[in-house]
Structure formats: C-alpha cells, structure tokens
C-alpha cells in the first residue's frame, strides 16, 4: 500500500536542517520593531551582470541570471533559512514508497504575469520542452520515465529508477516554471520572452538596459497577495566588486552578494554607520575551494606527491589570510554542510596534517630528492576573474610559499576565465588548478562533478584525468539509495577520494550577503538558505520608501 509522505521534503536529502539558527547577522543588528509590512518604494540590488545574455535561467547557471530570475519566476517550492522546503506553486507533494513517483498538487486559479491562466500543463511543458537545456537537470531528466497532468492542478513525475536528490531538481531556483502559451511551438532558446520574461514571480520586467540595469515592477497577478510590497526593484549592473561595495556603503544600492574580502569592510561600516548589514547564510550551499591535480603526467601522477603537497599545506593560513576568517577547513570530499551525508570520521585534518618533514619524506620516496634546495617546479593556475581574483590570488601565493618550504617551486598563472577553462578543461595543460565550486543542495548536484569520470572534458567537471569505476559505482549507489542509507556509501566515497586525492578540498565557505538597513523585518525577507537570494516578495521598506 502506497504510503503518502506529505512534505517529506523537510526531512529528505543531505541538505536538511543544520543545527544552527537560520540567520546570523554580523555587525550591528537593528531589528525593526514594527512588523507590519508597508507597501511602496523601490529597492536596488547590485550584480556584476555577467551572463545576462538571457533571463531564462533554464539556459544558464550564471549567478546574475539566477538572482534576476528570483524576481520574475517562481517554482514548485522554495526553502526557508533552515533549508526546509516551503510550498510555493505546489501546495504539497507526495512521494511513492518506491521513490519513483512524485505527485505535485498545485495552487488553483493562478495567473501568469501577462494575465493568462496557469495550469499543470505549464509544469509538464517546462519539464518536457524547456528543462532539457537546464544544466541542473542533467541527472534527473534522463531518469524521467514520464510526466503527466491528470488534472489542471496535479502533476505526476515518474522516474525510471529512484534518485535520492530528485526532489532537489524541482525547487524554484533550478526549475523556474515557464509559460506554455509563450514558448509552445517556438525555438525555446530564441524566444524573445527570454529577454522579456513572463513568469509567476513577484515582479515583472519593465525595462532591460544592456550593461546598465533591469527595472522590475510589481506583478499584479502574483499568487501570494498582498505581496510583493515594493513598487519595484532595480537590478544595477556593476561589474567590479569593489564598486558594488562602494555603492552599497553609500546607499546607492540596497543588496549585493559579498566577496569574502569585503565582508569585514561591510561589518566595520555596519558598526560605524548602522546603514548596512553583512549577513551569513547559515544553511548555505558550500563553496569548496579545491585543488585539482593533473594526474596524466609527472609529478602529480604519483600519489605520494599529491599526499606530500597536502602535508605541506597549512590550510589555516588560507582561512585567515585569503578568506579573512570566514571559511572553515574542509573535513573531506563531502562538505560538512551536508550533515546527514558527510562522515567526519574521514578527516583530512588527521590524515593530512600540516607536516613539512613528512611531506619531504614522501617526496623523497616518490623519487624527487631535494637538490640545491629544489625538487621540481609546478604550474598553479586559477581564474583571475573579477569575483575570484581577490581570493584566489592570495590562496595561490600562500600555497606557493608553503610548497617552497619542501622544495617545490610554483609558477602562478591567474588567467581570464575563458583562457583558464581552455587550459585546464579542454587542453589539460596544467599541473594544479585552483577552483571554487558550489556544492549546491546535494552532493549529486555539486560534488560528484569533481571526482567522477569526465571522458568528454566538460568544463567545471573533474579535469584531473582520474577515472575510478569503483568510485563511480559508489556514487551511483549513494544517489539511488534511500535517505537513511546514503551516508554509508558517502563514507566509502570519502575514503576513496582521501586515498586517491585527484582533488584536495581545502576549505568550505558560506555565503555572505550585504544589505541596507532600509529593509524592514529582515527575518522574513532573508529567511532563505543554500544558493537562494532574499525573498523579494517579502521585502518592504521603512515607511514604504
């Protein structure tokens, strides 16, 4: 007999609630006493604008596009600050006991921002015809047996085989719902609506000025009336992170995602002026700062060399000097944020403590003796793009200094994103590559790509040449197992990676947001987790302006 599991979302998956509270406010917390939302006003959010070739976030994973799609689009559910799934367009969902059938019950009587009615046919259309371009659906879609709409307010998705992270593929960030009446019968990628979208979100686009700003106004058909509270939102395109922070501190913008090097600056300004906050997303998708080794050639084809450079690293310096204390040590390949999946008994801190003597011994054993104070030279490459540069350059310099202590000379090459992708992922012409990738909401979505085989040389996927069928099989088991059984597979996963070290996970880093104190009732507006941005439908300003 089928067992219906209402809102299983809150308990499923490794992303589930971390013990800590939903929100940590850093700096001067000036909570509003008046909790009654007021209508009116316009807020400004800042972004670097990269990738804003389209506003259809099925067609890109570029961060600014995801941020903007939070304004005009909505999905079946979102998450609160503790990582708990919160119904949005779906009021509830059931999962069959065999974990293969997902039934979503939709709100009735909803309208798109252009006033046309919404129904389950739109969800089916999104999954069948639009999501095939979606980079986050590469696991779930090939495993989808069917998607049907038995009535106007119900959608049933049937999988070929259980997939533990399947439900992760339905949240609003990775599966924004798209209007069938706009896209049906057209080339989805060329549809003009990609630049002038019609959605279910709280705002609708009014103007898109390339390279400068996007202006949104209240969507009168929004499903959760009387929200949104603002009259509108402007997205300011400011390419440089320093300028973004300047603009935030001067009150020219109200919200921006903070680079780690700027968190302290915003904290200081918060204390001095009380006009801004720096906020850490407590349950955040971990950013994994990692080193990928090219295992196709010496010296990193030798396991002892990879182990030696790990011993030669003092990761605490990276946290203090490059991340200004805002990161923490990675325990193993599975970030600690996945509390129900990561097994801390596999501990890099114990397996590979900072030990220069041991590093030297391993290098001797690997056949790289110290001659005139030097063993060999390696090339450490990284993306020197605007957002990464301020963090990656100090990390690279710290590593070079530490490796020099064991006789490894390091040549640093910070490259333009495109050159770095070509060098590392296409040409495989590197020794060590420094990268920081999001772990998203489940290891299946954000971690596997670093360790599983990558025969097609896909960018941002394991560039090391490492391909271990044993690890791939374990990952497949972890992905298909029931929630309670996944941890055991991930422990084996962690052990294999800790042994083979095709990639070293150095640190895990939470997400920080900077925002203006013009916003009121921050605990509702910023009750979000993982990669999500503030609940813009909840945002309201003091006195409505």
């Amino acid at each position, binding site marked *: 007999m089928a067992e219906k599991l209402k809102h299983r979302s809150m308990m499923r998956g490794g992303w589930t609630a971390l013990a800590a509270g939903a929100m940590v406010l850093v700096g001067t917390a000036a909570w509003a006493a008046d909790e009654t939302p007021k209508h009116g006003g316009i807020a400004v959010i800042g972004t670097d604008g*990269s990738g804003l070739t389209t506003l259809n976030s099925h067609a890109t994973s570029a961060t600014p596009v995801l941020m903007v799609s939070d304004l005009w689009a909505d999905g079946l559910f979102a998450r609160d600050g503790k990582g708990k799934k919160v119904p949005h367009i779906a009021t509830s969902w059931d999962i069959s006991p065999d974990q293969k059938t997902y039934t979503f019950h939709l709100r009735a009587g909803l309208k798109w921002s252009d006033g046309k009615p919404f129904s389950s046919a739109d969800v089916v259309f999104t999954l069948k015809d639009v999501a095939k371009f979606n980079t986050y659906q*590469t696991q779930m879609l090939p495993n989808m047996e069917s998607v049907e709409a038995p009535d106007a307010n119900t959608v049933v998705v049937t999988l070929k085989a259980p997939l533990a992270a399947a439900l992760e593929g339905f949240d609003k960030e990775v599966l924004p719902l798209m209007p069938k009446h706009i896209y049906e019968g057209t080339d989805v990628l060329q549809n003009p609506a990609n*630049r002038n979208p019609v959605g279910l979100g709280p705002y609708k686009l009014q103007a898109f000025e390339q390279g400068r700003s996007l202006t949104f106004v209240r969507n009168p058909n929004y499903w959760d009336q009387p929200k949104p509270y603002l009259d509108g939102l402007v997205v300011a395109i400011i*390419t440089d992170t320093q300028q973004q922070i300047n603009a935030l501190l001067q009150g020219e913008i109200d919200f921006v995602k903070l680079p780690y090097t700027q968190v302290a600056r915003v904290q200081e300004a918060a204390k001095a002026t009380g006009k801004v906050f720096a906020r850490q997303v407590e349950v955040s998708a971990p950013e994994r700062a990692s080193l990928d080794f090219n295992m196709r050639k010496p010296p990193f084809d030798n396991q002892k060399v990879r182990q030696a450079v790990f011993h030669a690293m003092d990761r605490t310096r990276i946290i203090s000097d490059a991340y200004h204390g805002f990161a923490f040590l990675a325990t193993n390949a599975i970030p600690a944020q996945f509390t129900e999946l990561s097994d801390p008994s596999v501990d890099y801190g114990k397996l590979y403590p900072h030990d220069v003597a041991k590093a030297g011994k391993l290098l001797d054993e690997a056949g790289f003796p110290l001659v005139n104070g030097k063993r060999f030279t390696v090339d450490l490459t990284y993306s020197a793009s605007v957002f990464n540069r301020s963090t990656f350059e100090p990390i690279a310099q710290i590593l070079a200094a530490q490796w020099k202590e064991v006789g490894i000379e390091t040549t640093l090459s910070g490259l333009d994103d*495109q050159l770095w992708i*070509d060098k590392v992922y296409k040409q495989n012409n590197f020794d060590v590559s420094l990268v920081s990738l999001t772990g998203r909401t489940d290891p299946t979505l954000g971690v596997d790509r670093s360790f599983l085989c990558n025969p097609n040389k896909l960018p941002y996927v394991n560039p090391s040449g490492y391909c271990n069928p044993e690890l791939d099989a374990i990952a497949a088991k972890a992905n298909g197992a029931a929630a309670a059984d996944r941890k055991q597979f991930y422990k084996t996963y962690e052990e294999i990676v800790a042994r083979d070290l095709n990639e070293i996970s150095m640190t895990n880093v939470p997400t920080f947001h900077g925002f203006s104190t013009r916003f009121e009732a921050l605990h509702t507006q910023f009750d979000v987790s993982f990669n999500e941005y503030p609940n813009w439908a909840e945002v309201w300003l003091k006195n409505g302006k």
Partner: protein
Amino acid sequence: MARFIIARLGHAIPLLIGVIVVIFCVLQMVPGDPVQAIIGQFPVPPAYRASIEERFHLNDPLYIRLFQYFVNLAQGDLGYSFRAQRPVLDLIVERAPRTLLLAASGYAVGIVVGIMIGVQSAVTNHRSVDRFWNALVLVGYAMPTFWIGQLLVIVFAMNLGWLPTQGMAPLIDRSTGFAWVLDRMRYLALPMTTYAIYEATRVARLIRTSVIGTLGQGYIVTARQKGLSRREIIQGHVIRNSILPVVTAMGYSFGTAMGGAVLIESVFSWPGVGSLLIESIRLRDNQTIVGVVLFVAVCVILMNLIVDILYSWLDPRIRLAR
C-alpha cells in the same frame, strides 16, 4: 576640399578591410568557449551546446565566417551579439553617445585647462611658477588614470559623499527638467574629471614646449616692439601658432577614445563603448569585438581627416592636397 575628403575616405577602405581580417585572425587564435561563457559554471547539455554553435555559426571555418561578415557588412550589418541578443550596430549606436559625452567633456575641460597651464608655464619658463606647474603636470601624467579615478571616488564619493560612486544616472530616476540635467552632471563629474586630468597633463606638456619655441620666433619680438600687450601677443600670435602639435595629438587620441576609455569606464561603471568591449571580450562575443574595433578604426580615420582640415584653418600656409 570635397575631392580631398573623398580620396581620404577611399584610402581608408583597404585599411578597414585589413583591420577586420587581422581581428578575425586574432580572435581565431585566442582560446575561449562562448557557449560556456553563456552557460556559467555547470556542464552544458550536449544538445544545448550544439544548438548554440549552430545558431551562431561558431564551428564554421574562419574563411566562411569572414566572407559572411563582409557580405553582411556591405549591407550595413555589423553582425549579431549573442550576449546581448541584439545587432552589434544597435549596441554601438546605444553606447557611443555615452562615450562621446564622457570623452568630449573630458577633452574639452582637459584641453582648456592644459592650454592655460602650458602657456603659463612657458611664459614663466624656469621660474618658480613654471617649476610648480611642471611638477604638478608630471605627477598627474605619471599617475595611472584608474588610480586617479579611484582616488576621486574615495575622496568625493566615499569620504565627502558629494558625488555618486559609479554609474551614468540615478538608478531610480524621478527628476525632470533642469534637475534631470543636474543629476546627470553629478554622475558625469568624477569620470569627466579623471579624463580631464589625464588630458590636461598631456596638453600642458605639449603646449609648453610649443609655446617656448614660438616665443623665440622673430614675429613675436616684432609684436613686442610694435607695443602689443602681453595678452594680445599670447592670444593673437602665440597660442594659435603653438597649437598645431596639440591638434595632432588630441585628434588622434580622441578617435581612439571613442573606443571608450576602458579603464575610466571600468572604474566608474560607465556603460559606454569601452565597457561594451570589456564585456564582449570576457564572454568571447566575437562579433561585438570586431564591431567595436571597426568602429574605433573608423573614428580614428575620421578624426585624422578632421585634424587635416583643422590644420588648413589654423595655418593657411598648409593646403589640402590629394
């Protein structure tokens, strides 16, 4: 005059063809994946990649893309930006007036200030005033423009709070009439000043040298002996006869500046042609890169032509010839 202009423009055509061929070849050699630049940080589904490559002819051989570009160019089509999903010409037409506003105002202020400093420095040659201006000009000239821009932001925007830190106009714009103009002048002030400082130092150096040379000419001595006042001599004889080198240098650099003062536009998030070029390079939006380079080349050619015409006006001894 008309024949001269037509001939000069005719000579420019092979040059522009050469520019296009060179930039196409350079872009062919530079690594990069426009598809990944669109997609972001995650693997691209193969069908999606194939669709984009087909749509924008990314896999066509170089000679086919080049031939097609020339065919389109002959019809006034500068190509299509996959990044902006708009014709490249539209983008340039949208951005060029912004860069023109910044460059023209910066040049205007810079040239006037530069001439004043340069002339005063020259007429007080080797005296304390000259030394003061020389030192100041040298410092201004040696400072990178992006650094000057950042200093101005720190002082006038961050510390004093008088002016905005970046942008071209208020993001939430409710002003009208004269208030609308004032708003925009506030946004223009810092980038324009940055531009003006750089240009003023260049002009001051050029004009000082030129004026010192002119002051030694016989006709200046004659003018003095005729009893003309110092002001009359400088305004009537010295400046006009000293300005040719400045016209040459400024004319050439103004044409280049229409490609956007990349650093200044970056520092102030000024959405002009320079920012367009940077964004396009970052995302390997090759047709836009070619379009912007072509636009700059045309500007340089036109400015050189204007400089030649100005020459004949400033110095009647110079005659335009084919």
